[in-house]
């Protein structure tokens, strides 16, 4: 019996009068790789951001390791977020810090790990993502793909138990997409629990354990990649796949 890492119960999110997430109930098992796909405006990013409470849901529950995130005080929430790494579409690296400092700042300030130890870990991570030689450079000296790999290393430096990816390759030039996907693929193979919002159907098909198809504020269907991509059951998914898999 696999352990549930994240459990979502009747999740709802409203922005004023606009209901983005209507009623979502799902769960993510430990070690699972979930790819969330669907047309734009489906609420995928909002859904992902609700998982670490960057966006406060207006209804329902998000349980992380059995603990409800909704309505939690700031301090407890900060502690839970340490365990949930997040990678953004726009990288959001800190432009005033070197690559190395970007990675060490949170372990040093939040986890009180000493500078030397944190740098060592950071260098290991940079080697893993193939950017050890960029440690002393500043973010604006890097290409988009390199920035995103640093952002992944930065999130991994907190030793998270789950990684959330919010369209990590959408802002990249096409030739840089692969270098980022490769890092993510390696991460998935190492057993990391991942929730990935993506438009990379090839990646989803190859790496995901499960596909969640979202449209109109609901998860319309879930399934294993082979099954989903060859025999989508909902008309919305059929329509969507027809458009993207030309």
């Amino acid at each position: 019996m696999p352990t549930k890492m994240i459990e979502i119960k009747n999740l709802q999110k409203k922005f004023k009068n606009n209901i983005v997430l209507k009623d979502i109930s799902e769960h993510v098992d430990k070690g699972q790789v979930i790819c969330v796909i669907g047309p734009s405006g489906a609420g995928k990013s909002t859904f992902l951001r609700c998982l670490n409470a960057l966006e406060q849901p207006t209804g329902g529950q998000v349980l992380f390791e059995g603990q409800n995130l909704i309505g939690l005080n700031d301090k407890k929430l900060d502690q839970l977020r340490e365990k949930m790494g997040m990678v953004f579409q726009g990288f959001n690296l800190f432009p005033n810090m070197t690559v190395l400092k970007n990675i060490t700042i949170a372990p040093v300030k939040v986890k009180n790990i000493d500078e030397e130890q944190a740098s060592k870990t950071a260098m290991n991570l940079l080697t893993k993502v193939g950017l050890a030689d960029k440690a002393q450079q500043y973010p604006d000296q890097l290409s988009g793909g390199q920035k995103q790999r640093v952002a992944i290393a930065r999130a991994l430096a907190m030793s998270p138990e789950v990684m959330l990816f919010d369209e990590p390759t959408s802002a990249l030039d096409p030739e840089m997409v692969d270098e980022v996907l490769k890092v993510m693929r390696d991460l998935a193979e190492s057993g990391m629990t991942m929730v990935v919002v993506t438009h990379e159907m090839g990646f989803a098909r190859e790496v995901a354990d499960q596909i969640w198809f979202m449209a109109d504020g609901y998860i319309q269907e879930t399934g294993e990649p082979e099954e989903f991509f060859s025999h989508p059951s909902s008309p919305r998914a059929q329509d969507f796949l027809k458009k993207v898999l030309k």
Partner: protein
Amino acid sequence: MKGFKHLLMLIIIAFPMLCTPITALAANESSSTSSSATNSSQVASDDSLQKIKQKGTLVVGMSADYPPYEFTTKENGKTKYVGFEVSLAKQFAKDIGVRLVIKNMDFDSLLVALETGKIDAIISGMNVTNERKKSVDFSNTYYSGDSYFLINKGDKDKLVSAKSFNGKTVGAQNGTLQSTLISKEMPKATGKGLAKLSSLVIGLQSHKYDGVLMDAATAKAYAANNSNLYAFNSKLPNTAGGIAMAFPKGDTSLVNAANQTIKKVNKEQLINKEWIPQASQYMKSYKKQNTVLSYWRYFAKGIKYTLIITVVSVICGFLLGTLFALMRLSKNKFLHSIAVCYIEFLRGTPMMVQIMFVYFGIGAIIQSLPALLAGIIAVSLNSGAYVAEIIRSGIQSIPLGQTEAARSLGMSKNETFRYVIMPQALKNIWPALGNELITLLKDSSLVSVIGVSELMYQTQLVQSATYKGVLPLFITMIIYFILTFTLSRVLLYFEGRMKHAH
């Protein structure tokens, strides 16, 4: 919650009205009960003399740019107040057995200072008039002089009487008998008033005014010290009852004590026989070393205080600014409203008024508030409002993604602000902060109005001591420029370093 914001605004606006006018009102009310102060046989039932004796000092306010009444000279590089009224004040202090403290300020600030308890008495060539009697108690008179015109020597043949000023411009020091005389007796002349007599004389020399009306002794002193100037009797009616000391309303025992001294002084004719000749000696002796540069110590002192005010106010202003910027950005409506009121009010009122309000207004509650501290408080509060807005714009210029990235890494709100937002914001707003710093350094010159010895104030001392107007101003301008230019270079250096670290 919205009503609260209005209430707060009301309190802030009402506050100034609450503190100062009450003292003024009290003074007016008592004026009807106590009659002429020139009556020396009044029964003293108050403890004003007792209080002075207990505190051991008599604080006398004067406008020390009025030779031979009171003016500054330097002795061993230190400013010294001299003049026959200074001698009189010394005599008075000696007679009641206390130490004399002189406070030098603009003539038109003297009455406010007396009302708010900053000074115990005014001895500053103040003529007794019925209007002034409403707000102060006068001693007996000890001197009376006619009003003289001071003119440029070249106009000597054209300007011979009050009438010859028809259609011309005549200056007088604000709040003096002479300024009233111009408006009453010379309706066809244009009257101009300034706070400093020395500034008026500069204006005369640069032909901004055709003449300056002032007290006889002073006009003669200026003419004697500057060969380009000429003084003659205006023959305007002397409506005033002569010159006397002024005391707060109801300080009868103090007035009586002053009258004792004045009686003795008048009897022995000390003023005409001893003190005026002494004062003239000072005027002659410093005429010899009258070059502006020999007053460099004055400028040095001024620079020192200007820098003290600037440095302390910048630090306080920055801390206040950060605090109020955070309050303004806060979701807490109460804190937000306080910050908005503070910023809008401080930005919406002139700094000069704020400085005088802190000194005279707050100073009326806290009597011992020194002028330097009052100046620093006012400048800091003012700067805080501007810095708050700069910092707010800096914080808001940082993309939300930075906060989200930091929070998603488990950093708290405080850690995010300290390590991620503020360093980036600071870099963005550095040029604006630099601007504010330079403005602050320059604006610190406004503190001179409450008599803090900063650069501008010291310049005015040099002006009145040397009888030269433009040169000291020019030197001061250069000094300010050197200070601000150095500062802007330093700021640029740090801006460059922040850029490199990118």
